[in-house]
């Protein structure tokens, strides 16, 4: 077989040769070539191995529908599964075949082909059931290793980006129908986006020989003039090299633009743009797809769809084979035969399943004139050859087999409208008995389908169809256009899904899905085993699955199934084509949202100070909070926390608590609102005092906590947990606006308007007195849980006497602009008093020593205030509050609910681990009765041993008793259940 150049094309620069490698061998192509066209030009036919049987595979199509020629691009981070029929070559491109080892030529995996009679449909389900224990350690690792096509790409930072569009109309496809639609809408005021998957407009006009002139102009000139006109309009934008992959709900389209077609993507340059398009109307004019015919060995390299063969000639200027055999069941090969004859190439034979009287007279005339051997009422029985087609068997009307020596067979099994996007949009298809295909019937969204995509396979009907369907858009109606055709005006077809095998053997294969190695025999077997619904059969056989989604074969599968079941195809129905239409790389989906932009980060106003002073940060929601501060580079988390925790209890420490949620509540009914939102009673609370408060959900479970500062009955400030800030504000707004609209109350988040510093430790008062010289911090003037507004650097600061460590402490609320100054002042004046900065881990340890819970750590949405030993926070005389009714349910008043307790190990050397189970026995051999689990645990330098908080069944009654806690290192060890407070039960430190 030899390929030949056709230099009468405009898309290949024959003067510009390009060098590239395939499996390490150097080849030469031309600017504009795809990998496939360049390999064909170099007479390379085998380009990969099949998925399951590792059969040699060649180039089957010339576009996005390619099921076989999937390759790995070594020069682009090892990008796998790239369609060789799409990817253009560039100087230095390195390509490798997939699914073969050690080489494409000699692939050890091809032993699967010999064993293929064993690999019938459902092989995995049936074979790897027993012995049971083998699955996890033997079968699964082996199957996973063998599975998949290609190797994962090397890690790299994507240079893809994303772009959002909002337009009135999107036209998918810049072929004849798409261009005519754009022309008719050009004078409207509609904002229009045209998406074309190719690097040029025209589609079939340029990719085939079917239409030579439009309006008495060469079709290329007609396209050029129209494109120029469209590009000059402000309301029309054309995206080329852009493939629409996904049609989501409410006319939302995803399209991927390749910005480096035919060039090496350079670091720092955008290589792909993922377009996210929202439109009022989407016009699908994305044409049709040619389908195969199943026959024996219909996967051999050298077999190609006839339309693709024509496209290689017309578009890429390469004639894959000068004397191919052509096999068809329809009228479409006329233009191909004409083209071959124009190029002085004569088909070796033309085989048509139709009887002579149904074949187009023009076609018959050419065939007779050129003495092309003609087989009518005939089929291809099968092909033979070792690694490519060598012999083609033709069965004529009498059943006589004629063997033709040829290395290429062009096949056309008919056309399907490319309905993938339409079905993704949830549009409904209907069966067309004339053209033997499913076509769009009812749109679910604002979708308009035009041309062959709508199942219109008659050129003379296109204009009328466009005028009818676009009339509601106030378009300019098109006049009829003159076309000079090398094709019949009306396409005709005869049913032929599969031909009969002459050589029946366990190894003979007639493929229906080339990408997934599914044979027609698999379909029969599946139905025999009861999978007679098309969706079940799809999953049992993997037909039409994967990245291919059965583009060239799914309708054939339905045809074969309908014949087996003796049903109409319309009764069998279709499977749903899954998005994306063609694979999208993860890089394009991620876009710029990786590394620094993976997730938005929130920083406090003094973040830079923390960085300079050895802070190691932890993520709390999106906040970056200092986790601990390293006093020297070698210090680890444990050492730092032990040091910080001792220091705070002995001297003083300050925590950046700016991340705490802060909400300002004001209105004439603010008091009533707060009494409803929280369990506490704020009615008798004095102005300028504060209270630890609990918020419940309607189910009575603890939702959040915080400190409520009461300015007066009409004005409050609430703090929330860091993670709960947005949720609590939203919860409050919802109740204010929807449940209690009669209350006059308004809320503002002030989380970001103030920084919060939590200073605590025995020396705190000394430091505060130095920083705020005019304020009296003694107990009489500034008692526990009171606050005041003071002036600092001409700005108002609010100081609240409260503590989350159990030590004497204050919370300082300060404007961000002076926050750093105040923070540094605290250290300037606190230096002699031993002030240190501490992080969240130390804060957690200190609060647990004091027995303070953290909502979300010690609670999990299933605990009540009683469970947490916080019933003292419920206002007994309150008429109502959110969650009140739920607290009297039989389940919430059960005495044996899980309740909060403290635990400590009997042996002080044992370390309690968070999340471990509290059990009654030292044995952890199942079944073990579980009492509850550890919610918090720490090693306390102040206590000299580890300790924890846990929720256990009937916990309050078990205080004083012993139990066991499971351990990751030693099974279980004994613990004592105690009250959940470990330091300063009398609050002497707190109110000192």
């Amino acid at each position: 077989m030899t390929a030949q150049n056709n230099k009468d094309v405009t898309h290949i620069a024959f003067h510009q040769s390009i060098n590239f490698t395939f499996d390490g061998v150097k080849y030469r192509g031309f600017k504009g070539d795809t990998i496939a066209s360049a390999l064909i030009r170099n007479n390379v036919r085998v380009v990969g191995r099949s998925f399951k049987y590792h059969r040699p595979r060649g180039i089957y199509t010339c576009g996005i529908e390619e099921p076989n020629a999937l390759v790995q691009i070594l020069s682009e981070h090892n990008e796998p599964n790239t369609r060789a029929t799409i990817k253009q070559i560039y100087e230095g491109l390195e390509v490798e075949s997939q699914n073969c080892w050690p080489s494409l030529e000699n692939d050890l995996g091809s032993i699967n082909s010999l064993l293929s009679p064993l690999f019938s449909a459902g092989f995995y389900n049936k074979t790897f059931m027993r012995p049971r224990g083998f699955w996890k350690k033997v079968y699964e690792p082996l199957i996973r290793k063998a599975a998949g096509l290609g190797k994962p790409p090397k890690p790299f930072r994507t240079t893809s980006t994303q772009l959002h569009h909002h337009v009135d109309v999107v036209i998918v496809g810049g072929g004849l129908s798409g261009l005519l639609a754009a022309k008719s809408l050009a004078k409207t005021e509609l904002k229009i986006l045209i998406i074309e998957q190719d690097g040029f407009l025209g589609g079939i006009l340029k990719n085939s020989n079917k239409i030579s002139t439009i309006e008495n102009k060469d079709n290329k000139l007609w396209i050029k003039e129209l494109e120029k006109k469209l590009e000059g309009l402000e309301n029309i934008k054309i995206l080329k090299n852009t493939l629409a992959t996904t049609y989501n709900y409410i006319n939302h389209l995803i399209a991927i633009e390749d910005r480096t077609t035919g060039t090496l993507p350079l670091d720092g340059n955008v290589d792909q743009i993922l377009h996210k398009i929202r439109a009022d109307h989407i016009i699908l004019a994305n044409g049709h797809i040619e389908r195969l015919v199943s026959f024996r060995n219909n996967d051999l390299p050298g077999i190609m769809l006839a339309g693709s063969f024509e496209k290689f000639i017309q578009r890429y200027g390469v004639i894959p084979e000068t004397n191919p055999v052509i096999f068809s069941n329809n009228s479409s090969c006329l233009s191909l035969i004409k083209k071959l004859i124009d190029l002085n190439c004569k088909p070796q034979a033309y085989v048509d399943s139709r009887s002579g009287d149904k074949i187009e007279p023009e076609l018959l005339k050419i065939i007779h004139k050129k003495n092309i051997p003609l087989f009518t009422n005939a089929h291809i029985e099968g092909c033979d050859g070792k690694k490519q087609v060598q012999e083609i068997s033709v069965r004529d009307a009498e059943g006589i087999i004629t063997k033709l020596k040829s290395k290429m067979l062009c096949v056309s099994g008919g056309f399907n409208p490319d309905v993938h996007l339409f079905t993704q949009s949830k549009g409904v298809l209907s069966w067309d008995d004339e053209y033997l295909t499913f076509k769009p019937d009812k749109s679910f969204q604002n979708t308009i389908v035009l041309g062959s995509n709508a199942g219109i396979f008659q050129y003379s009907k296109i204009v009328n169809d466009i005028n009818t369907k676009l009339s509601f858009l106030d378009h300019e109606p098109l006049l009829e256009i003159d076309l000079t055709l090398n094709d019949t005006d009306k396409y005709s077809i005869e049913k032929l899904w599969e031909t009969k095998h002459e050589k029946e053997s366990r190894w003979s294969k007639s493929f229906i899905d080339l990408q997934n190695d599914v044979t027609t025999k698999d379909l029969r077997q599946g139905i025999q085993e009861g999978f007679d619904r098309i969706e079940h059969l799809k999953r049992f056989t993997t037909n039409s699955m994967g990245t291919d989604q059965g583009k060239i074969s799914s309708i054939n599968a339905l045809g074969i199934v309908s014949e087996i079941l003796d049903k109409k195809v319309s009764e069998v129905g279709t499977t749903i084509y899954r998005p994306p239409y063609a694979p999208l790389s993860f890089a394009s989906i991620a876009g710029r949202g990786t590394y620094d932009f993976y997730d938005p980060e929130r920083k406090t106003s003094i973040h830079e100070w923390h960085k300079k002073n050895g802070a190691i940060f932890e993520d709390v929601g999106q906040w970056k909070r200092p986790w601990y501060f390293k006093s020297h580079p070698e210090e680890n988390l444990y050492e730092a926390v032990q040091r910080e925790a001792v220091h705070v209890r002995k001297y003083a420490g300050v925590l950046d608590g700016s991340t705490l949620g802060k909400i300002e509540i004001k209105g004439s009914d603010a008091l009533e609102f707060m009494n409803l939102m929280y369990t506490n009673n704020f009615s008798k609370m004095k102005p300028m005092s504060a209270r630890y408060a609990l918020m419940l959900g309607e189910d009575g479970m603890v939702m959040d906590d915080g400190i409520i500062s009461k300015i007066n009955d009409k004005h409050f400030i609430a703090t929330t947990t860091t993670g709960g800030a947005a949720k609590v504000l939203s919860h409050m707004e919802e109740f204010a606006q929807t449940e209690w609209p009669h209350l006059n109350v308004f809320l503002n988040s002030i989380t970001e308007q103030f920084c919060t510093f939590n200073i605590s430790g025995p020396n705190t008062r000394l430091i505060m007195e130095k920083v705020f010289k005019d304020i009296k911090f003694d107990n009489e003037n500034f008692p526990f849980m009171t606050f005041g507004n003071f002036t600092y650097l001409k700005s108002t600061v609010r100081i609240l006497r409260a503590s989350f460590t159990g030590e004497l402490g204050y919370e300082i609320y300060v404007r961000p602009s002076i926050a750093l100054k105040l923070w540094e002042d605290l250290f300037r004046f606190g230096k002699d008093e031993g002030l240190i900065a501490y992080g969240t881990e130390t804060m957690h340890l200190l609060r647990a020593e004091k027995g303070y819970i953290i909502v979300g750590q010690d609670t999990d949405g299933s605990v009540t205030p009683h469970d947490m030993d916080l019933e003292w926070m419920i206002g007994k005389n309150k008429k109502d509050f959110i969650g009140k009714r739920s607290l009297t349910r039989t389940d919430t008043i059960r005495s044996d609910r899980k309740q909060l307790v403290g635990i400590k190990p009997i042996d002080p050397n044992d370390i309690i681990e968070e999340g471990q189970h509290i059990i009654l026995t030292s044995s952890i051999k199942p079944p073990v009765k579980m009492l509850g689990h550890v919610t918090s645990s720490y090693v306390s330098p102040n206590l000299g041993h580890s300790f924890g908080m846990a929720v256990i069944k009937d916990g309050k009654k078990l205080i004083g008793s012993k139990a066991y806690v499971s351990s990751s290192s030693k099974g279980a060890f004994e613990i004592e259940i105690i009250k959940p407070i470990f330091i300063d039960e009398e609050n002497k430190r707190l109110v000192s």
Partner: protein
Amino acid sequence: MNLISSNSVEIKELNLHQILIRGDHTPALSQLVKSQFKISLPKNNLEIEEDKNVICSKSSFDQWNIIFLQDTKIKIDTVIDKINENEKLLATNYSEGQIYLEVTGDNKIAVLNKITHFDFREQKFPSLTSAQTLIGRVDCSIYNLKNKMLITCNKSFGDHLKNQLIDAIKF
């Protein structure tokens, strides 16, 4: 401060003052705002009233944003205290908790479209209207001030948003 100027887009970070007022659209509120800021309250949701140096936008049925586009002699805290004297209103100084980015230039929408799905078309987002949406996955307010966009977000997200915008221009 000029953050970046490239590809017909210019982004400046501004130090502005902002007051967030919550309260029903009553004559008392209208009068108060008019007397303090010489500006009327917008009638419709997301609408902006503009004066030389100040804008007032209606962010929801009871939420009003007043932003001073230039340095103001008004003592913000004093005005807020005055507004808060009315027990049925809540005014908060939002100046320091937000960042303010002014985006100008012919390509401003093209750049913003890289990091937000927001529909900037004139018929959907006319001049002198505002909106709340995600930009670079950060919750932002956008004010369409005719030939420029003013974008605000919580200060804690400031570095992230600025870096996203710079990246969108460069990349």
